[in-house]
């Protein structure tokens, strides 16, 4: 998609503005946004990264008629810190780590937009991570197991099955 302002560069910033139910979308490139000034996070226009994020969160309910599902989302709240979904979408920030659990149903689309991905693949904490590391390994082995069965490599499959069992046993003991 090309920038609406200059029509030359690809649009890298996408905004949706909703004013009393009226939805306007605009797509512009970084340099035009910079020229306009008002659209860049943190400048005098006050378009902070958090308000940008809350724009993303609002997209869920951007349709003219709010579906039942949307209403359910608006009713969500975190039972640990008390933050409601609408507060979260206004602030663009979580109140505590449990918010991730209570708002989970809404997070995949958000993370896909922000990061292009929904799951962590990086560093694991050493202590709490031992179990997770084990689980990741088991998942990987299971995947390999499926493949070897598909390719009718039954000896490898049997070997993999034993390794999975051993790991699962270790996990249960911890």
């Amino acid at each position, binding site marked *: 998609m090309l920038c609406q302002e200059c029509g030359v560069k690809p649009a890298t910033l996408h905004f949706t503005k909703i004013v009393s139910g009226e939805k306007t979308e605009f797509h512009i490139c*970084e340099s035009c946004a910079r020229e306009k000034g008002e659209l860049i996070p943190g400048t005098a226009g006050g378009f902070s990264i958090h308000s940008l994020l809350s724009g993303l969160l609002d997209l869920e309910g951007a349709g003219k008629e709010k579906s039942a599902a949307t209403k359910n989302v608006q009713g969500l709240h975190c039972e640990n810190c008390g933050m409601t979904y609408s507060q979260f979408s206004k602030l663009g920030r*979580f109140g505590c780590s449990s918010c991730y659990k209570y708002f989970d149903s809404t997070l995949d689309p958000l993370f896909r937009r*922000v990061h292009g991905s929904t799951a962590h693949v990086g560093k694991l904490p050493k202590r709490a991570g031992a179990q997770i590391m084990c689980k990741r390994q088991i998942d990987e082995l299971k995947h390999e197991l499926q493949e070897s069965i598909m390719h009718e490599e039954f000896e490898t499959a049997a070997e993999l099955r034993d390794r999975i069992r051993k790991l699962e046993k270790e996990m249960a003991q911890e």
Partner: protein
Amino acid sequence: MSSLRFTEQALSDWMRCGGSHSEIVISSRMRIARNLEHLPFPLLASAEQAEEALEQLAPVFQGEATESFGTFELLRLDELTELDKKVLVEKHLISPNLANDSRGGAVILNEDESVSIMINEEDHLRIQCLFPGLQVKEAWNRATAIDDIFEASVNYAFDDRRGYLTSCPTNVGTGLRASVMLHLPALVMTHQINRILSAVNQVGLTVRGIYGEGSEAVGNIFQISNQITLGQTENEIIENLHSVVTQIIEHERNARERLLTDSALRITDRIKRSYGIMAYAAVMELKESAQRLSDLRLGVDLGILEGPSISVLNELNVKTQPGFLQKLFGDELSATERDMYRAKLLRETLGSQH
């Protein structure tokens, strides 16, 4: 070690040696965001809860495990003057956010100021490591080692699927913001900068001014950092940044060479004019001094000027900031007086005493 040094010396010790590619790369920085399990994030924490986070985190970096990183000192933000906070921000040792509105905010600094650990910023814990020149991997190695020390004694908010949980959805996963500060005057002069910066945006990286989110790129200094924190490993993030930065360095180098071959007279005149103005001017605004210091830095690299050294230029970049000028010449300076003292400082450092 006295805490005074953090706010009285303009140049952190880690900045004194240049690091690789120091003619273009000013510094490499890693920032890791972490939170404690069971406590609400600083945004919602009560004064007692903020204090509790501080009590859990502060002792970790006064133990023996940290000795290999040097001596550390903790500064509580509520015990600092407004001016000292401003100076710490200007030296990149704390964020404007921690300085302005943190509750129970504190920072742990090591002697050479290459490690800065912020407590109760947007997240409970923000580990920051700064290295001179292009040293992203070295900076990451140190940051992750410090992370391991904390993790050995406190429980982090971590989720199997989402990774390290952070207050802002833009940091979740690795919690890692890796950034490199670049001086790109030739790309700006040859009008290639916008093309390059928009290309940078397309590969998951972002460009900021030197004081972080929302700040302006003054003095041709740009900060390039990763945008994505979820779904990539730390290594991928660092490799990606490193390879893009290496390409930008190459472009900047080519542009500098072209400036010398195509417009040597014009560029020499511009740089020498800047030197002359700084050596004699009576009033100097921040924006102008940043631009002219950028000219000098370029002049030294191109061999048009013999001095000052990069280390002196780095020092002037910090000393010409409003907070530091007040530190040097008095608390209650008006804007006009600041411009006057900035000019005085530049005159005294760069030669003429008139």
